[in-house]
């Protein structure tokens, strides 16, 4: 299936004409240039020394012959790697797996399927397409044209194809050929469908040889996030990158971290760890493999990566003491920032199912059984020693990791020999591995473990003399950890150090993730977001709720059509249903030896016609230049060409400077560029119109308005921004939001115009966009413009604020105190603060807009009333700009009577 073929080879005979062309061109010299020249009299009688320009030079001939040859061959329609597969006359069944892995090759798959459709259409065969991730249905054979639309609209699903036998049962009895786009993964029962297809006719399988990467759910190990990835179809070394996504502080979804993963040759599973600050980690919503737009490359996170619930129980709660001596205080300080804390009675706490229970020097526990059950289920019991623990009879305490000797020991005290002990470096298998140990951490008192063969295995941290400082015992899914010192600074200064915080953080994170077991999922769960086959998310809130039992089943068996991968939640918890589970086995499909297998990225049929025609045209253009050069007419042209080439685009910094100069040479009104040309032009024309009116009627004479690109341009130069809100405009970046907030804080004003005229009083797309924009801005509480707002009288006295629309409500910053108007004064005393935003939807710019000749661009209202409306729109604009530039100066006039009164006395 490789080589070169022509659509219309007969045209190639035209190549025979080339020698004729050669002769003709050779005979005709290039046309002379006629030049008027006064000094010709001095030239008379000067003979040419040779006649070389008499004939077309050979290289020009070659150039022209090449151009003609390229055109002839191009029009003959050469096709590289033509598809010359033999076709039978049977109908064709196209089978598409379309599961979670097909997103990465989907356009390619669709192209091949479209080609097949076109080919069968030409051959007059009927076609049917079945998508194996759908519910089984009988294939419908119809004309190829009828399938083009559905095929183009088809999307891969975010679950694996299943129910092959169901599909096999519904196949028709007639003979047909089939073409199976397989995802290359070994699904159970695939052979049943294959044999059914092979019984019906010739079956060809197309699958991608490209490696497939899948991301397993992220988990926790020793306080770090563990990311596992698997791959299929690849045996060489490979490097992929995984990014963690989540909302940034302003709520916009962003990449929070990126880490590389490298597969060694023949390695199919790879694992890496990611260490992130708790604040960042808590925000992660998903992990995804870069560059593979398939559902299998995305792994959602749920509560398992979220903050832990930690319960702190202290026996000393009844005792009165200074707060700084209380162990609780140290624990709250250390654990507060990284977890949700709860305090209370052990019985109450256990019902809330915390992840970690901290017991600070509690010797006697009544709820041992319940506590043990809880630990068995994965709870982490974190205990601290103390005087009470040391004094109690510890032999039979089941909730200690090691047996303790009664009494403990003191070192480095006033009555003891020896110095306080310091910490030994952490072992490599300790969860604390890698944490830096400060030199000044010392332990002067501790409880001691009884010597035991398993003591060293249970030790997580030890002192430099080998006595254990932190010990651990695993019970069921959970564990018990004991610090052999107190949680306050009484026995050691460890709780005063940063190391204490880090140790607690690691321990907390190593507690179990919230139960993934199926049994306890009850009630109704609703999808919050649903994964698409391309690894993107769609809103799942419109979907019906699912039963907890079904969700539990899907968690173990993988998602299906009724329960697609996504994030499910109820009131308390959120659970991620991922395409790839921790145990999902990826194994390549092994096809029977007699299957016709084709790779989907084989040499594609490539049409060379366009390339050849372009080459021909380029050569002809060169020929024009060469001809000009030969006849001596190239000078000006060459100069122009060189100028064009060297006319480098203006440097960005220079453009910025120019913009700054323009913006600061006078008062400049500005509008935000939305990317919608029509809206932007209208905003520009509107500000021009408003500027004209301002110049004519007031002492404000603005320069030509400027369109602002939020990402690029500096806002500090402008007093006023007009922001036409469009539904399509992208949300500003975080930097742009910071810039806008700075702009608003430093006295700038933004006039938001949703341009919908409050149509229908409901939610419009523009209003939704406005909500998104304003959610990132520091906007004070708003109120509809009150009748005595300074906007109603900063230049003109106006009552309402029409634009092209008249109905919309206009909002400004709420006045600080709803003072009553003083007696005899028309207005309240609202003296401070220019409103930072005006929000409305009356499409003011459209009413202001004028064209180059100063004539209004858009009609407003009807007849005289329309003119009046436009006039009031201008008056509103003038009032706004006055308000921006003069603040509440007009409001001050309220005091004039009072001042006069006082002066009179």
């Amino acid at each position, binding site marked *: 299936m490789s080589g070169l073929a022509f659509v219309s080879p007969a045209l190639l005979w035209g190549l025979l004409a080339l020698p004729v062309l050669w002769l003709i061109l050779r005979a005709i010299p290039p046309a002379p240039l006629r030049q*008027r020249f*006064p000094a010709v009299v*001095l*030239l008379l009688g*000067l003979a040419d020394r040779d006649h070389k320009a008499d004939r077309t030079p050979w290289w020009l001939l070659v150039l022209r012959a090449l151009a003609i040859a390229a055109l002839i061959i191009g029009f003959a329609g050469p096709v590289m790697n033509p598809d010359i597969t033999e076709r039978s006359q049977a109908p064709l069944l196209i089978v598409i797996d379309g599961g979670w892995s097909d997103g990465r090759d989907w356009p390619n798959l669709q192209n091949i399927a479209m080609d097949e459709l076109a080919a069968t259409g030409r051959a007059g065969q009927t076609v049917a397409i079945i998508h194996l991730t759908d519910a089984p249905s009988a294939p419908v054979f119809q004309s190829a044209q009828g399938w083009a639309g559905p095929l183009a609209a088809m999307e891969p699903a975010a679950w694996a194809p299943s129910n092959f036998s169901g599909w096999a049962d519904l196949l028709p009895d007639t003979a047909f050929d089939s073409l199976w786009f397989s995802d290359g993964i070994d699904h159970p029962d695939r052979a049943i469908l294959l044999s059914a297809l092979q019984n019906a006719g010739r079956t060809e399988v197309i699958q991608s040889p490209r490696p497939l990467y899948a991301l397993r759910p992220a988990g926790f190990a020793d306080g770090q996030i563990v990311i596992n990835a698997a791959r299929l179809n690849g045996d060489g070394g490979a490097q992929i990158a995984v990014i963690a996504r989540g909302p940034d502080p302003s709520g916009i979804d962003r990449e929070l971290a990126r880490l590389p993963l490298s597969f060694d040759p023949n390695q199919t599973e790879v694992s890496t760890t990611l260490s992130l600050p708790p604040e960042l980690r808590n925000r992660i919503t998903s992990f995804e493999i870069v560059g593979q737009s398939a559902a299998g490359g995305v792994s959602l996170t749920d509560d398992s990566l979220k903050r832990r619930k930690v319960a702190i129980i202290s026996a000393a709660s009844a005792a009165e003491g200074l707060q700084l001596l209380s162990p609780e205080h140290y624990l709250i300080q250390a654990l507060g920032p990284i977890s949700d804390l709860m305090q209370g009675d052990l019985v109450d706490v256990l019902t809330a199912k915390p992840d970690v229970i901290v017991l600070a020097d509690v010797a006697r526990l009544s709820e041992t059984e319940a506590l043990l059950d809880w630990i068995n289920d994965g709870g982490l019991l974190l205990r601290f020693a103390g005087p009470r623990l040391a004094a109690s009879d510890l032999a039979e305490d089941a909730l200690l990791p090691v047996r303790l000797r009664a009494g403990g020991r003191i070192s480095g005290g006033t009555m003891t020999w020896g110095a306080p002990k310091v910490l030994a470096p952490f072992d490599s298998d300790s969860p604390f591995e890698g944490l830096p140990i400060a030199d000044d951490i010392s332990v002067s008192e501790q409880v001691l473990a009884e010597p035991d063969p398993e003591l060293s295995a249970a030790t997580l941290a030890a002192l430099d003399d080998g006595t254990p400082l932190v010990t651990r015992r695993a019970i069921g899914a959970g564990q018990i950890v004991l610090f052999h010192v107190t949680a306050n600074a009484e026995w050691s200064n460890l709780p005063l150090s940063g190391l204490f915080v880090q140790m607690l953080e690691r321990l907390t994170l190593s507690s179990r993730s919230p139960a993934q077991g199926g049994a306890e999922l009850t009630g109704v769960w609703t999808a919050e977001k649903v994964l698409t086959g391309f690894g993107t998310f769609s809103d799942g809130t419109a979907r019906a709720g699912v039963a907890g039992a079904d969700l539990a089943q899907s968690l173990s068996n993988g998602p299906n059509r009724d329960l697609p991968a996504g994030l499910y939640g109820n009131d308390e918890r959120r659970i991620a249903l991922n395409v790839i589970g921790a145990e999902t086995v990826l194994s390549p499909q092994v096809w029977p030896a007699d299957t016709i297998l084709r790779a989907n990225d084989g040499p594609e049929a490539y049409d060379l016609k366009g390339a050849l025609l372009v080459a021909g045209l380029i050569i002809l253009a060169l020929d024009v230049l060469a001809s000009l050069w030969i006849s*001596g007419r190239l000078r000006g042209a060459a100069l122009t060409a060189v100028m064009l080439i060297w006319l480098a685009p203006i440097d960005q910094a220079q453009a910025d400077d120019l913009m700054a100069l323009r913006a600061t040479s006078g008062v400049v009104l500005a509008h935000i560029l939305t990317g919608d040309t029509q809206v932007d032009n209208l905003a520009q024309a509107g500000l021009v119109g408003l500027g004209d009116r301002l110049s004519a009627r007031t002492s404000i004479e603005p320069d030509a308005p400027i369109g602002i690109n939020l990402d690029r341009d500096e806002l500090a130069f402008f007093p006023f921004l007009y922001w036409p809100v469009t539904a399509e405009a992208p949300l500003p970046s975080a930097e742009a939001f910071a810039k806008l907030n700075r702009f608003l804080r430093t006295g700038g004003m933004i006039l938001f115009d949703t341009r919908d005229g409050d149509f229908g009083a409901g939610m419009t797309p523009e209003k939704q966009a406005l909500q998104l924009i304003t959610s990132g801005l520091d906007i004070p509480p708003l109120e509809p413009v009150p009748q005595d707002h300074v906007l109603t009288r900063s230049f003109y006295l106006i009552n309402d604020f029409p634009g092209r629309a008249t109905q919309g409500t206009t909002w400004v910053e709420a006045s600080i105190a709803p003072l009553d108007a003083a007696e005899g004064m028309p207005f309240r005393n609202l003296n401070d603060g220019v409103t930072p935003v005006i929000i409305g939807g009356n499409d003011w710019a459209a009413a202001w807009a004028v064209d180059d000749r100063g004539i209004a661009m858009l009609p407003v209202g009807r007849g005289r009333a329309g003119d009046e409306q436009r006039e009031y729109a201008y008056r509103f604009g003038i009032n706004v700009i006055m308000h921006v530039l003069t603040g509440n100066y007009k409001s001050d006039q309220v005091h004039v009577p009072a001042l006069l009164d006082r002066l009179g006395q």
Partner: protein
Amino acid sequence: MQSDAESLGSALPALLAEAEHLAASLMLGAHGRRRAGHGDEFWQYRPAMIGDAASRIDWRRSARSDGHFVREREWQAVQTVSFWVDPSQSMTYSGAQNRSTKRDRARLLTLALSVLLLRGGERVGLIGGGMPRHGRAQLHTIMAELAAAQSGDDYGAAQIDDFAATGRALYLSDFLGPIAPLQRAIEMAAARGIRGCVLQILDPEEEAFGFGGRVIFESMAGGLRHETQSAADLRDRYLDRLAKRKDELAQMCRQLGWLYTLHHSDQSATTPLLWAYRALEGG
């Protein structure tokens, strides 16, 4: 034809304005004779000496003192200057779109010189035109005559008739055509005691000859043509001939006591104006 003349005529006042401007730039440097003589302007009082006619004594001045004083006036000799501007088609050439033609430059210089000379009280006229006169009205006569002087010939022949009996003459042309008429004219003028200058105006393109490839050169009126296959080859030989022509002109002028200079139409007109003014006023 008439419309041609009208369009030309409409261009001339602009040219005149430019000429006035140009002349104004020169007024600072060149002035009157600075010595006593015949003229209208007061020069100085001097004590009357023996030989002074009694009628020359300025009695009003003398009454203020004991001596007698004579009022002297500044010497103001009136010159007659004649111009010849080549009217041929060859002068209409310009090598670049935004460069003035040689004819425009010649007319500009003529008008500017006329402005200067008329202001100095000289009589100015065109050779082949009306009588040289003084006074500002003559400027418009000259302008009209310049506009009317157009010939369809390729190259102009310098005129020799209509010379004022004495005075000075200025010939402005590119002098690319046959040189014999000019020589005759100058010789004849020199024989009558007329001194003058020859100002050759060339376009830079004529000096550069930046042509290449196959070119058919045609004279401006189309009377002459020369075809070449490789214009670049001709360059050296052409430049030789041009240099020879310039030498010839300079040689001829030197022999007859005339002055010669070369001016390129892309350069400032001030330099040739100053040169010509000095040459015509001098002595």
